[in-house]
């Protein structure tokens, strides 16, 4: 039942079901927005996610011994345009967890750093219709040796991940629709325990992490200053196990699935276009072995050119 995650990728993992998709449109690995060549963008976002119900396998319940489990994350996100069609971006989150009821202690720490490369090999126009194709690759890995077997208070799941995503973007005037599909390969992780039971007893500290897929559809308005989109995101874990009834000892190889809906907005100041602010929200409408989280985020970004503005 954990939760947050770093922006983009790991997000998919969290049992709380937060998804990066909920994050504002700020040139992430999940949207179709590109930085121009030599443009550098950096910003800070804050995320708050919470849930008071969760799915134990497919059984939805609350838990008075947890109350509301919340996760906060403060994240630094740099992004750079190598070319107009090739961007590289990263994120570094610091995460806190807390349960409002019961006796469990919250945890905090640096979670997973992620780095993505976003490539737009193709832009085609047919009259007023414009299609763009993207290929995105990413990598994330824990920044600290945080505890992964104290779910839902753990700040992350501990795996090193590689992500490959294909994305297609359609634009007609200010209307846009973007669809993406990603495959997330996750490395095995190591527990502090040297034996654990999921569906059988394993006499090792090593846990086989099932891989995941992440699909997202987003659509809305994309203007010069304002971007506003609705999001539908589906994360599926390709394997893993279900939480058994009233089981409080959970391991990172859970079958964590979630479907979330949300919205995100980005606004660039007209008077000072270097600065933009973002906000978003996301809500879990279906899940398995995750919390039914509601997530909000807000961020501020500053963009400038490194050296001379490239002629394009």
């Amino acid at each position, binding site marked *: 039942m954990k939760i947050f995650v770093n922006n983009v990728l790991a997000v998919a993992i969290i049992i709380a079901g937060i998804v990066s998709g909920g994050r504002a449109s700020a040139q992430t690995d999940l949207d179709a927005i590109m930085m121009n060549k030599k443009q550098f963008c950096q910003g800070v976002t804050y995320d708050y996610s919470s849930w008071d119900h969760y799915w134990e396998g497919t059984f939805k319940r609350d838990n008075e011994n947890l109350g509301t489990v919340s996760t906060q994350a403060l994240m630094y996100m740099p992004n750079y345009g190598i070319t107009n069609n090739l961007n590289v971006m990263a994120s570094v989150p610091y995460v806190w967890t807390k349960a409002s009821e019961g*006796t469990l202690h919250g945890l905090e720490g640096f979670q997973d750093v992620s780095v993505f490369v976003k490539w737009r090999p193709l832009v085609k126009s047919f009259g007023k219709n414009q299609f763009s194709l993207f290929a995105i690759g990413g990598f994330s890995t824990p920044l600290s040796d945080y505890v992964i077997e104290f779910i839902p208070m753990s700040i992350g799941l501990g795996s090193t991940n590689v992500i490959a995503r294909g994305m297609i973007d359609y634009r007609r005037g200010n209307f846009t629709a973007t669809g993406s599909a990603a495959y997330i*390969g996750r*490395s095995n992780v190591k527990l502090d325990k040297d034996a654990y039971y999921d569906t059988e007893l394993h006499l090792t500290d090593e846990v086989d992490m099932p891989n995941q897929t992440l699909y997202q559809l987003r659509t809305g308005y994309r203007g010069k200053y304002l971007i506003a989109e609705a999001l539908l995101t589906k994360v599926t874990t390709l394997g893993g196990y279900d939480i058994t009834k009233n089981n409080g000892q959970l391991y990172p190889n859970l079958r964590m699935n979630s479907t979330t809906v949300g919205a995100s907005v980005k606004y660039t100041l007209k008077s000072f276009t270097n600065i933009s602010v973002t906000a978003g929200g996301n809500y879990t409408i279906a899940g398995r072995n995750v919390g039914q989280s509601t997530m909000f985020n807000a961020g501020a970004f500053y963009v400038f050119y490194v050296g001379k503005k490239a002629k394009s």
Partner: protein
Amino acid sequence: MKKNIFTYLLTLVVALWVITACNKSIEGRTDNISFLSPSNIDLNAGSWKLILLSRPDSFLVAPPAATNAPGYIGELNEIKGLQQNLTPDQIDNIKYWTAGAVLRWNETMRQLVAKYNLAPYQNEDGTYPFPSSANPFNYPQFPFANPPYAARAYAYVAAAQYDALVACWYFKKLYNRAAPYKTDSTINAHSGHIAKTDLPSYPSEDAVLAGVTAELMKLFFPTEIGFVEQKAADEKASSLASGKNTRSDWTAGEALGRQIATVFAARGRTDKAGAAIGTPAIWAQMEQDCVTKGEIPWISQESPKRPPQLPLFGKVKTFLFDSATLVNEVRPGAPPATSSQQFKDETAEVRYYTEHVTRDRMKMIDFWADGVATPTPPGHWNDIAAEDFLTQNFSEVRWARNMALLNMAMMDAAIACWDAKYVYFNPRPSQVDPDIKTLTGLPNFPSYISGHSTFSAAAATILGHLLPSRATAYNSMAQEAEMSRLYGGIHYRSDIEVGYTVGQKVGGYAVKRATIDGAE
């Protein structure tokens, strides 16, 4: 640029392949160990001191057929038939069991405990249902294999396995029928996954273990009878196909094991564990007794409030000493009064550790958590013991003897610990100081004395006697296990220190038995 992009894409694909496709399968520590090869077959183990049986021949085993009798020749031919065209799965099964049947049944027990170590989910009205041995398939599943239940199950199975193997060794020596691989060189040539010893094969020790364990599971894990019988069948297949036993070795051994199990099952049905849950009136009386003494009583911090875990487990019949000894010799004195300065200081110490979390302490807390859905602390010590026993080349009967000593000590430790918990009904640190947040699950029973400390000290004491070269290591493991409970915010220092003393005392009774049981 294009070229770079393709390089990048290629790198990505390779990285993805490395992380996902590349051998993600995990290997357990005992998955690929070699066959058990005893340095001493302990041929005279039939004379070792029994636990419940009065004599090794309390249950008779008929004399076997001679090795040149036609029936026996037929049994050898059966083995030769089985050894033709063994599949990889069949060979894996042989390897699994020939690594040690006491070990494999112990691992199976640990898995079942972990599977069943889950507290019931509450009813709609905020009360809790209780597992029922009469309706084991109804929710909540039976049993709730919490630490006392688990300690008792491990002990009964281990003690029964020991008595059954002593009886088995008695008849082995008496009848002295050589193993199939000794009798027939063709079988010998095809049994590459077993140690070929001079131990007589009738009755089969593997079969005795399968029979005694499967039979006892009807008492301890009644919903797993099918699973356990399948394990027994797998063990039988291994025993025959490996050339270790003939069918008559097996049949005699299994029958002996099942008969001996009934003696232990009968004790188990009358050892008062069935009444350990108590009644609401008894729970209220325990709380009231504590208040009468002027102390703050323990209150469940679960929500909804859960009844205390097995409050009458302290009344269960012990293995290594009698109930008068429990009360007069083993039971500790009272904890620091809840109004005392010492109590306040110890509470403050707990709070300090929960407010100053370090990664090293977290690792200890997690490693020794042994909470719900784990094999419990006794299971953890079985794991520790098993891995060390593997290096010792013990015979099966010595494995069983050592496991029985360990697990009887831990069951009696559970009884002594639960006795103290409910005699004193002492509150948890997080009850008296709600600002204390715990770094591991908070157990739903009184604080004094610490179960981890009692189990671990008892285990370290007997294991240190059995493997003196490891005594220092066991002691430091026990101390780490204990401290992890203080660091985790669920025990005071007194709980730990007194728990350690009580555990050592209980372990001492196991050592005493070990010195006179004829095996040393």
